[in-house]
């Protein structure tokens, strides 16, 4: 695609915005680093610059979405095969928007969150890494040169690794960081191969000119899924994710889970754009991955007791949903069904935005909770709602949204994917099978997710506090609440204004699905009904609430302890715990979860002590990764016999080598 003429016609305001964003972020990071000694100042600089940069980035993203032709920028960059060329097409715009908006809010939140670290930890380094992370993400999203992309990609990995191991004094953070680093690097190896194959077959490392067809295309696609999927957290490549997110500090995990892992999705979409007409099995692959990641992700989330770990597994689940959408889109393209393609991609892209919003919101909320109560263990929390009203409300909205409940944004994107699936289900048998897989997994995911967040919100915020720490919790500062409020508001707005949101994304969707925007407009018409119903629901809520108010006017209201079969002195320990809440579901899926329980059951007539603790280790890590790694290490230890320490042996190697070479080469 040749942009030069159209680009020349375009006023490149958006690109200016982008470049300005990058410079702001970098300078801000450096200044924060330089003023590291004065924690307050450097923290302020970091937060302000990241917020400012985020806003500018949003402008750039909007510009890219609206612009009639892609924005571009080219500058010489003196490294082998490298050029500093950026490209802002609508697809990039979507991710730009999500990334910048979330990082801006996380930055503001961080200023409040890290206040307690001043003087204890090198905040300058932290903020520098944070801004670098944002900048590298933006470059990854807009890079048009493979080398630039790879460099930004690895820088992103490095700084996010630094942020994950920032609290490296505890070993879990270290190991989490290492797992992340290694997984990311293995992924990058695939990307190296992929880009070089692409570059070889298209004769340039310019992403806008890359293209490949035939059997190579399949190889490239698989490499892309492996390489980008590791970052995105497809099962079974997700191993790093449930460890890394809890290890990082909350604003960072919000950014990582909200947008950084989405760069993997972006990469896959970008590469799909280069591969021309997809083969059906690509769609099948994506749907398979999506179903597995979605269902298993939410199941493992249900089994967790650490709030952040739970959210991390939900990221796997949501990535799965996105993959389902992409799979439908690819199938639609392969089978020549534009409406299916459009709906699938629309669902995927909208869910990218939505997940960024509510997952960011939830991680920020967890950060507030953890800071207020000093623990992330669900079993030790409870009764926080009256203590942290604002946080609780935001968290509730986020929970409802991620559970895909109307009238919030999570429902809209899932609904779009459902619509696409119906289009498929009405068609050939193969398509119907695919659609059925999508529908079933989406339905399951919906139910499980709402169960999981009923647990998360209910046990954490409701009932009576289960520990002194939770009882002493206080609401967090305004700087931390404001971003959550904003995100919660966005959840509602996107949910209520679904059709308009989709229309705003339509250029990107059209680009990703290779269809005309009209196809989408027709296919997504039901969204107007959804919006209507959302409005109706809100009205109904008000009406019913009013009715309740009227009916209770002037009636007596009593206070009592909770009814416990007449046992009049309930204690917090009697409450339903997270484990017992999830237990029936977990038992149902024991086959995959393999939940380990250590318990001592009450014995005797007057049991004094009883205890139940359940722990669900990651399936892939326990069953696959650890044994393989152990075997490999054992094997290598055996191979080391070569370096035996005997001089004579060493010289024998030389002799054998020379003789062998002579015999081999002089034949």
């Amino acid at each position: 695609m040749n942009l030069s003429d159209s680009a020349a016609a375009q006023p490149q305001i958006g690109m200016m915005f982008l470049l300005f964003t990058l410079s702001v972020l970098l300078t801000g990071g450096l200044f924060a680093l330089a003023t590291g000694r004065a924690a307050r100042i450097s923290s302020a600089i970091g937060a302000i610059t990241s917020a400012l940069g985020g806003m500018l980035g949003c402008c750039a993203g909007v510009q890219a979405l609206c612009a009639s032709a892609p924005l571009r920028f080219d500058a010489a960059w003196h490294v082998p095969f490298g050029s500093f060329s950026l490209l802002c097409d609508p697809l990039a715009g979507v991710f730009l928007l999500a990334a910048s908006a979330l990082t801006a809010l996380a930055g503001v939140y961080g200023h409040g969150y890290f206040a307690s670290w001043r003087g204890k930890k090198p905040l300058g380094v932290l903020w520098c890494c944070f801004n670098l992370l944002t900048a590298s993400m933006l470059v990854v999203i807009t890079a048009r040169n493979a080398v630039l992309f790879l460099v930004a990609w690895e820088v992103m990995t490095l700084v996010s690794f630094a942020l994950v191991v920032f609290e490296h004094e505890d070993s879990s953070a270290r190991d989490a960081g290492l797992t992340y680093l290694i997984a990311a690097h293995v992924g990058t190896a695939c990307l190296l191969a992929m880009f070089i194959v692409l570059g070889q077959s298209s004769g340039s490392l310019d992403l806008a000119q890359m293209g490949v067809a035939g059997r190579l295309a399949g190889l490239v696609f698989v490499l892309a899924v492996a390489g980008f999927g590791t970052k995105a957290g497809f099962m079974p490549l997700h191993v790093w994710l449930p460890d890394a997110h809890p290890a990082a500090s909350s604003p960072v995990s919000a950014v990582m889970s909200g947008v950084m892992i989405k760069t993997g999705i972006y990469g896959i979409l970008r590469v799909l754009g280069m591969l021309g007409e997809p083969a059906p099995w690509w769609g099948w692959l994506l749907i398979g991955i999506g179903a597995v990641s979605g269902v298993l992700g939410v199941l493992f989330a249900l089994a967790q007791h650490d709030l952040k770990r739970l959210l991390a597994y939900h990221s796997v689940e949501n990535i799965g949903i996105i993959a389902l959408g992409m799979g439908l889109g690819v199938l639609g393209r392969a089978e020549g069904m534009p409406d299916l393609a459009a709906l699938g991609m629309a669902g995927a892209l909208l869910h990218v935005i939505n997940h960024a919003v509510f997952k960011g919101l939830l991680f920020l909320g967890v950060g507030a909770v953890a800071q207020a109560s000093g623990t992330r263990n669900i079993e030790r929390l409870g009764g926080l709602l009256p203590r942290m009203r604002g946080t609780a409300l935001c968290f509730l909205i986020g929970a409802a949204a991620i559970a895909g409940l109307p009238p919030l944004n999570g429902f809209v994107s899932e609904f779009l994917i459902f619509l696409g699936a119906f289009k498929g289900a009405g068609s050939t048998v193969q398509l119907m099978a695919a659609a059925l897989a999508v529908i079933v997994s989406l339905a399951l995911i919906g139910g499980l997710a709402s169960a999981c967040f009923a647990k998360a919100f209910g046990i954490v915020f409701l009932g009576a506090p289960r520990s002194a720490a939770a009882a002493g919790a206080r609401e967090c500062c305004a700087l931390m609440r404001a971003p959550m409020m904003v995100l919660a508001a966005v959840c509602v707005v996107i949910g209520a204004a679904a059709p308009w949101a989709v229309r705003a994304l339509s250029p990107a969707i059209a680009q990703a699905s290779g269809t005309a925007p009209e196809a989408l407009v027709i296919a997504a018409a039901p969204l107007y009904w959804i919006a209507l119903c959302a409005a109706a629901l809100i009205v109904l809520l008000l009406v019913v609430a009013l009715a309740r108010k009227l009916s209770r006017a002037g009636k007596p209201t009593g206070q009592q302890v909770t009814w416990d079969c007449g046992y009049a002195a309930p204690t917090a320990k009697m409450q339903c715990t997270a484990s017992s809440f999830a237990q029936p579901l977990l038992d149902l899926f024991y086959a995959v979860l393999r939940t380990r329980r250590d318990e001592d059951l009450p014995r005797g007539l007057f049991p004094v002590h009883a205890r139940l603790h359940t722990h669900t280790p990651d399936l892939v890590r326990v069953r696959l990764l650890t044994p393989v790694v152990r075997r490999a290490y054992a094997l290598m230890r055996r191979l080391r016999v070569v370096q035996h320490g005997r001089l004579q042996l060493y010289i024998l190697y030389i002799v054998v080598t020379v003789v062998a070479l002579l015999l081999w080469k002089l034949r």
Partner: protein
Amino acid sequence: MILQSLLGFVAALLLAPLLAGVTNRVKAVIAGRCGQPVLQLYLDLLKLMRKGSVFSSTTTWLFRAGPVVGLASVVLAMTIVPCAGSPGLVSFTGDFILLAYVLGLARFFTVLAALDTGSSFEGMGASREMLYGMLAEPALVIGLVALGRATHEWSLAGMCRGIGPLGTTGSVSALAAAALALVLLAETCRVPFDDPNTHLELTMIHEVMVLDHSGPDFAFIQYTAALKFWLFGALMAAVLLPPAGNPWLAPAATCAALLVIAALVGIVESVMARVRLTKVPQLLVGAAALALFALMIQLR
């Protein structure tokens, strides 16, 4: 047409509590009691609305919001269900997804309200409710997708228009209806899934979740349950009954079908006991299997 739908909707709102009465009466008759009046639920509701209320001291605004959200969302769901041969007030491609998820919303808030009390029993009930919901939702969706595949229509109204008494669509609708019947029993907390009038908290599911509600809130909950019963009944009726041309025949048929369904539920409740908790998932998975079977028979 709109007028008809509106009428159907209003009628549903008004008549829903009646069905519970019918069920109870049937149970009484079979048990050889004379039983409470058919309109008993109306009386209860009125009484509750007049009462004051008592709240547990651990509860918060969420506890009070639970019944409100529940009622509102089920009312919204009622607007989607086609009633008496006419499409629901709201009818569009994929509307049944909205139906399922709105019910999910109601369940979510009911469960949260239950957890808000901090009672161990209500927590237990909440977790079981979630389990059932999680299993019932796929069965419902797949059943309706089977109908959609059969009729190539993806709105409830369209499906109900499309199905015929005979041939593939007939068998599909029969299977789907069977799945729906199980879902109905689960969602409305009836035997064999739940026992609405047990008195042991450990064995209850829906009832135990609302132990602490009183006064108007409890009235809302009761009414919500009745509406749900009507909703699923109407859905089954719409799926089972072939579209009737005659504008008067359809409402009559629907009402009759609803009464029959209520009576059947009563019979079921009186002839069989509640199954063990561990068996419940099997029943619901069975429902989903029926729905899948309804899809399979169209693979040609």
